C-alpha cells in the first residue's frame, strides 16, 4: 500500500517537473524565435548608409516590426510568420530602398582636402616606384647568389656577400610593403578609395 502511495507521489512529481520543463523550453523557443525577424532586419540595415540607418531602420522598420510582433493579431505563429515575412521582404529589396531614400548632400570638397589627396597619392606613387626598383635589385641579387652557390670554395666570399644582399633586400621589401599597407588604409579611411 505504501509502495503504491510512493509510486503515485513519484509519478505526479515527475509529471509536474516535466510539465514545468516543457513550459520553460516552450518559452525559450518562443523567445528565441521572436528574435529571428529582428536579426534579419539588422542584417538588412547593414546595407544602408549610417544616416539612412536612423531614418529608415530605427524610425521606420523597427517600430513597424515591433507593432507587428506585439499587435492585436500577435499569436505566436502568426506574429512569427508576419514578422519574418516583413523582415525577409525588406532584406531582399534593401538595395532598391536605399537608392530612393534621401541621402544627405555630400560635404563640399575643400582645397585642403584636394591637396591632401594629391599629396597621399603622390607619396603612394613614389613608394610604388621604390618597391619596383627594390624588387628588380632583389631579383639580380638572388640570381648572383644562385650563381655563387654553384661555384667552388674560392668563391666563398662572394656567396656571403650575395646572401647578405638577398637578406637585405628582403628586409627592405618587407618595410616597404608595411608602408604600402599603411597608405592603403589611409586612402580608404580618409577618402573611401581602394586601389584596383
Amino acid at each position, binding site marked *: 500500500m505504501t509502495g503504491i502511495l510512493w509510486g503515485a507521489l513519484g509519478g505526479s512529481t515527475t509529471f509536474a517537473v516535466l510539465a514545468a520543463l516543457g513550459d520553460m523550453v516552450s518559452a525559450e523557443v518562443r523567445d528565441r524565435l521572436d528574435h529571428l525577424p529582428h536579426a534579419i532586419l539588422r542584417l538588412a540595415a547593414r546595407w544602408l548608409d549610417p544616416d539612412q540607418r536612423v531614418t529608415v531602420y530605427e*524610425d*521606420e522598420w*523597427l517600430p*513597424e516590426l515591433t507593432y507587428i510582433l506585439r499587435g492585436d493579431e500577435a499569436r505566436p505563429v502568426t506574429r512569427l510568420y508576419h514578422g519574418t*515575412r*516583413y523582415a525577409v*521582404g*525588406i532584406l531582399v*529589396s534593401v538595395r*532598391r530602398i536605399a537608392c530612393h531614400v534621401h541621402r544627405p548632400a555630400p560635404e563640399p570638397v575643400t582645397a585642403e582636402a584636394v591637396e591632401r589627396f594629391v599629396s597621399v597619392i603622390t607619396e603612394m606613387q613614389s613608394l610604388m616606384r621604390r618597391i619596383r626598383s627594390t624588387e628588380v635589385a632583389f631579383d639580380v641579387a638572388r640570381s648572383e647568389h644562385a650563381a655563387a652557390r654553384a661555384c667552388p670554395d674560392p668563391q666563398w666570399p662572394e656567396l656571403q656577400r650575395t646572401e647578405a644582399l638577398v637578406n637585405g633586400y628582403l628586409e627592405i621589401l618587407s618595410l616597404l610593403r608595411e608602408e604600402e599597407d599603411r597608405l592603403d588604409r589611409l586612402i580608404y579611411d580618409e577618402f573611401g578609395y581602394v586601389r584596383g
Partner: protein
Amino acid sequence: MQDLDITPKMAAVLKVFLEDPDQPRYGFELMKLTGMASGSLYPMLARLEAAGWLARGKEDIDPRAAGRPARTNYTITGAAVSAARIQLAELSERFRPPVPGRLRPAGGTA
C-alpha cells in the same frame, strides 16, 4: 513634385491613399490592404516619397504608454492627389477591355 510612370502595383498603393487623402497610412497596413510584400512596397514608398508624392510623418502615440515606439506613416501630398487621380484614370483607360462591336443580322451587312 516629379512625374512618375505609374505601374499597376503603384496604382494599387495610390488608390488606398486616395480613398482618404488625409488619412496617414502605415507600412504593414498598406501591405494588408494591397496584398503586397514588404519587398515590393517599401521601395515604392521610398520612390514616391523621393518624388514628392508622399510625405513622411510619425504616429501620434506615447511610446511609454503604448509599450512600443511610434511608427512612421505616410500621407499623400496635396499636389499628388490630383496628379494621382489623373494618372489612375489614364491607367484605367489603358487597361479597359475594348467594347464589342454592334450586333448585326447574320449574313447581313450592318
